[in-house]
């Protein structure tokens, strides 16, 4: 039986998502252990220029589904296109990055093919050529290892957990155009507005600076934003301050917000409610700055600083500035 892996490459406005390249790289690493073929499928309008970037990651084949009908995302249009490509290639596994597009699209495609989907996967295990998926449950309070009993299975991989790496091996990359039948589209994206403020997406950010009640009011985000700017970090927030209306829900980290796994997570004035810890405790390094030495956040912290955030944060920013990280 083939153990081929098909990877859905997500693009928006002609930009390939980094987490899709992570999924493609991980597929190639898995292929090494099972001698499988990798197909990368891109859907969109005028996407041919993207092929050159994908070549560097050495899939065995790139499939381009290029047409005006795919200029704007529609669940039904993309489902039809991807499902037909999967039927044609008939892979054992379909990978994608776990993004808001994937949450909309992948369960629908998997259902059309009557296949299971393991979502938000953080680790893959290989057992005699069969892939097992490890995924957080209860927002990471426990981890489940999932096995598939069907000939085909779908996996969406959590951004920032798998390394994106170009390949230097010499293999050929085939490239083909594919034109699936048009779907009956009853709902589609008509416009997209960039969010104000946030320059780096939380779930993909390598560094996150987060604020909670301890920053005292929305006027003090500026202090954290300065720290973000010097680190190239994204700004996060606890549920308490989102519910208080200090900042948009898109910034919320934790059980009813985003689950994140950055290299560095700096929690400023966050006490560390169980729901917040669930959303960030898989970060590589956690720094906690809080005036309450008994705050639960310190139990998860790699480095704990007991003290006044208004004193410490500006000094940390100043120290970092001396390093000239951007240059």
């Amino acid at each position: 039986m083939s153990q081929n892996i098909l990877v859905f490459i997500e693009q928006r406005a002609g930009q390939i998502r980094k987490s899709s390249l992570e999924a493609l790289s991980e597929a190639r690493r898995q292929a090494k252990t099972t001698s499988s073929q990798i197909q990368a499928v891109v859907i969109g309008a005028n996407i041919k220029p993207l092929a050159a970037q994908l070549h560097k990651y050495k899939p065995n084949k790139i499939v381009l589904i290029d047409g005006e009908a795919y200029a704007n995302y529609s669940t039904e249009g993309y489902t039809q296109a991807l499902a037909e490509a999967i039927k044609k290639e008939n892979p054992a596994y379909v990978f994608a990055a776990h993004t808001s597009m994937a949450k909309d699209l992948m369960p629908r495609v998997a259902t059309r093919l009557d296949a299971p989907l393991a979502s938000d996967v953080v680790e893959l295990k290989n057992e005699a050529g069969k892939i097992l998926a490890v995924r957080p449950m209860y927002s990471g309070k426990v981890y489940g290892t999932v096995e598939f009993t069907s000939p085909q299975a779908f996996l969406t991989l959590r951004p920032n957990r798998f390394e994106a790496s170009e390949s230097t091996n010499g293999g050929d990359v085939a490239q083909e155009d594919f034109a699936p039948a048009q779907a009956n589209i009853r709902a589609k994206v008509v416009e997209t507005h960039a969010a104000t403020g946030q320059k780096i997406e939380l779930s993909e950010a390598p560094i996150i600076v987060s604020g909670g009640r301890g920053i005292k009011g929305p006027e003090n985000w500026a202090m954290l934003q300065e720290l973000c700017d010097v680190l190239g970090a994204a700004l996060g927030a606890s549920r308490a301050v989102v519910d208080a209306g200090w900042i948009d829900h898109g910034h919320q980290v934790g059980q009813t917000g985003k689950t994140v796994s950055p290299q560095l997570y700096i929690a400023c004035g966050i006490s560390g409610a169980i729901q917040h810890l669930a959303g960030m405790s898989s970060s590589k390094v956690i720094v906690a700055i809080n005036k309450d030495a008994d705050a639960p956040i310190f139990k998860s912290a790699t480095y704990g600083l007991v003290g006044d955030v208004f004193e410490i944060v500006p000094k940390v920013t100043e120290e970092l500035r001396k390093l000239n990280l951007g240059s």
Partner: protein
Amino acid sequence: MKIAVCIKAVPDTETKIKVAADNKNIDFADVRFITSPYDEFAIEEALKLKEKLGGETTVFSLGGLEAAEVLRDALARGMDNAVHLKDESFVNLDPLSVGKALAAAIKDGGFDAVFCGQQGVGGDNSQVPAILAELLALPQATLVVKLEITDSKFRAEREIEGAHEFVEGTLPAVFSAQKGLNEPRYPSIKGVMAARRKEIATKDAQALGLAGKIGKDNCKMIIREVTPPPARPQGRLIEGDADTQAKTLVELLRNEAQVI
């Protein structure tokens, strides 16, 4: 306007989750169940729509006694009807099987809109809304933070990475609610009293036409093992005045942790 809402009973988000003795699930002893937080937004949106456009609201939940409890709570908030999908075989189902059971219960109801929370807190699969839309052959909008419905057309605002996008489409459709869609109401005393007298309909696998088709042996995805998260290494406190703390931290992040 006929509106369906699908909800799930999940452990209270304050609960400390422990692995069960068989290492295949969590320990449900002493767990208090609540309506999954995102499903509260789904219920609220259905109630608001009914207030605006008139019609009838029906809430569905699959599971054991805990499902009956959250259905009762939804009735107390003002839902008109409740349907409990309950069968001995409806245990430890994968998302596709849950979607099949819900679709079977909803498909002939003539609903104009089907609402779900965007994710059941716990399994965290975030799949059932799209599965349901596919099985019901309906258009969908997921992760919705704002919804307008006029004349069997909808415009939904979705939260995506670093942006918001706007989806327009036609009813009937399936929607999944993201935090921010609305402010859920609490059940009123009057609502709680009224809900006590309301009947919760039950449907088993036979009634849904799914006898022998759904259950543990028909799942295509099985949880083989549940484990606690990897323990975090022992951390350390950085002492001194703010100047020293800041200098030490930056030095450690740079040279020890090597993350900057």
